[in-house]
């Protein structure tokens, strides 16, 4: 698991994906910011961040979101296979390691809770940021509340079934 996992602490599934020993330089951070910009533009241009699209999806009245997620998974899976077949390294020359996710009850309970929120807000965490950028500044409140939800999970995680 990621370097952020302290000794004695149970590593958390997919929580800290950074396997680097040290953080990124400002220039590298800028690179991630630019990748994020591209991602945000796709989000808006395909209207994936739209509350209406999420309603269409959960009402099974449009194929659009299923097409987006399905084709993203196919391209993602093919890319990972190509990386494995050709043993492609990072641009710094490091080996690419993909950590296996461990099954936990949280994926059921937490997943279900997130689903309830997803249908209300019309957004997973990524689109929240894009919605704010696109001018729906009131979504800042949703974002702060999502941070609060994350904090409450962290505070009580040891008491929850996992």
């Amino acid at each position, binding site marked *: 698991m990621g*370097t952020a996992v302290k000794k004695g602490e149970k590593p958390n*599934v*997919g*929580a*800290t*994906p950074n396997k680097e020993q040290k*953080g990124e330089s400002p220039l590298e*951070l800028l690179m991630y*910011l630019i*990748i*994020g910009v*591209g*991602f*945000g*533009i*796709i*989000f*808006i*241009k*395909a*209207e*994936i961040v739209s509350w*209406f699209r999420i309603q*269409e999806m959960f009402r099974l*009245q449009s194929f659009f*979101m299923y*097409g987006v997620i399905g084709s*993203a998974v196919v391209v*993602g*899976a093919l890319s*990972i296979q190509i990386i494995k077949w050709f043993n492609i390294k990072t641009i*710094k020359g*490091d080996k*690419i390691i993909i950590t296996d*996710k461990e099954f936990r009850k949280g994926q059921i*309970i*937490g*997943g*279900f809770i*997130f*689903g*309830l*929120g997803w*249908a209300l807000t019309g957004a*997973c*965490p990524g689109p929240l940021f894009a*919605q704010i*950028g*696109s001018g729906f500044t*009131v979504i800042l409140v*949703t974002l702060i509340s*999502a*941070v*609060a*939800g*994350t*904090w*409450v*999970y962290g*505070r009580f995680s040891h008491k929850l079934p996992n």
Partner: protein
Amino acid sequence: MEQFIEWIKQPWPWWIAGPMIGLIVPTLLIVGGKAFGISSSLRHVCAMCVPSNIPFFTYDWKKELWNIAFVIGVAIGGFIGHNLLANPEMIEVAESTQRDLAALGITDYRSIMPHEIFNWENLFTAKGLLFFVIGGFLVGFGTRYAGGCTSGHAIMGISSLQWPSVVATIFFMAGGFLMTHVFLGPLMKLVGF
């Protein structure tokens, strides 16, 4: 060039957007060996601002700043997409969805989000409490409990053939179906739609 601008202003079809999102997976892996995931950024914000000595938040968040830079980029991308490349038309939504939403009191299709729900006037009302405060809380709590969101589990997880991510995605959808078909109508009535 003008034709290109015209074309780029149209909403993009799923078969363009989906593969482009899929390409984020190898991009992040090749650039820095990073696993695609967005909900972690919420955890890093907690670790930066209110760690409160909670073991879950006491880690070196400086190593995770790439994730924060990435989501700031997503917000900037949202700004650019909306202001420079905006679709001048109303959003096209399936007629059956429009009928269902009209029954709930949602009829404004001028923007990607319905103004009836997402505006500052609703902040201190029951509508704001439901859609912003409770909705946001469920997203933040649920994604962290599940160990990821649509990006980390549905896209990155399933792409790398992780079966726990398939389980998580099934329950994301189950929660969404239940909210949409069972709770949303009565809840919206309750808050005054």
